[in-house]
């Protein structure tokens, strides 16, 4: 059996389970509408501003660096799988690869892009 058929079945199960849990309250729970109850929860204080304030650009920089290092990890996995067969050649190739990216990492650290202040 193709190994991905179980994946599809499990996926469908997970989604259906999530939908059931998500939709359960709609069918069973009581529904009493009250204007105040539907306000966003702000510890009892009336809402002053909307939810979206200015977010720090740090989150976004983190996400960017995540992508770039994620790709690096993927390439490293590819190498690790064939480590024995590639031998020293592979090690040297990857050492150059990692070295170039370490330069980037050092740049990022020196530039202070990882500081959360």
């Amino acid at each position, binding site marked *: 059996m193709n190994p991905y058929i179980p994946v599809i079945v499990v996926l469908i199960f997970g989604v259906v389970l999530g939908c059931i849990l998500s939709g359960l309250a709609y069918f069973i729970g009581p529904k009493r509408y009250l204007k105040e109850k539907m306000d966003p929860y702000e510890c009892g204080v009336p809402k002053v501003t909307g939810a979206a304030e200015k977010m720090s*650009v740090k989150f*976004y920089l983190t996400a*960017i660096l995540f*992508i*770039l290092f*994620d*790709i690096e990890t*993927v*390439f490293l996995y*590819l190498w690790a799988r064939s480590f024995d067969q590639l031998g020293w050649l592979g090690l040297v190739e990857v050492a150059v690869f990692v070295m170039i990216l370490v330069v980037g990492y050092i740049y990022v650290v020196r530039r202070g892009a990882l500081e959360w202040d």
Partner: protein
Amino acid sequence: MIPVENYFLLASFVFLCGLSGVMFRRNLIMVLMSIELMLNAVNIVFVAASRQLAQVDGQIMVLFVITVAACEAAVGLAMVIALFRRYGTVNTEFLRLLRG
């Protein structure tokens, strides 16, 4: 077996979707997402061809395309953020400095 042309047909439809997104959406982020769609269409062709020719080279190409796509998205969105800070909008209709 599915003939390989069907994959190419699918890919070209996805590509056209992406292309029309690039052309008709006014939001820069939407434009970038449409570009991702187009790159993705190209990847479908690569993988289908790789299967048809029974070589893995197409899949390696996909890997490089994904790398390029990641770098493109990262730099593109960095520029979008910079534009937003400077002009307060990401709508291409208002960002027409280059058109004079």
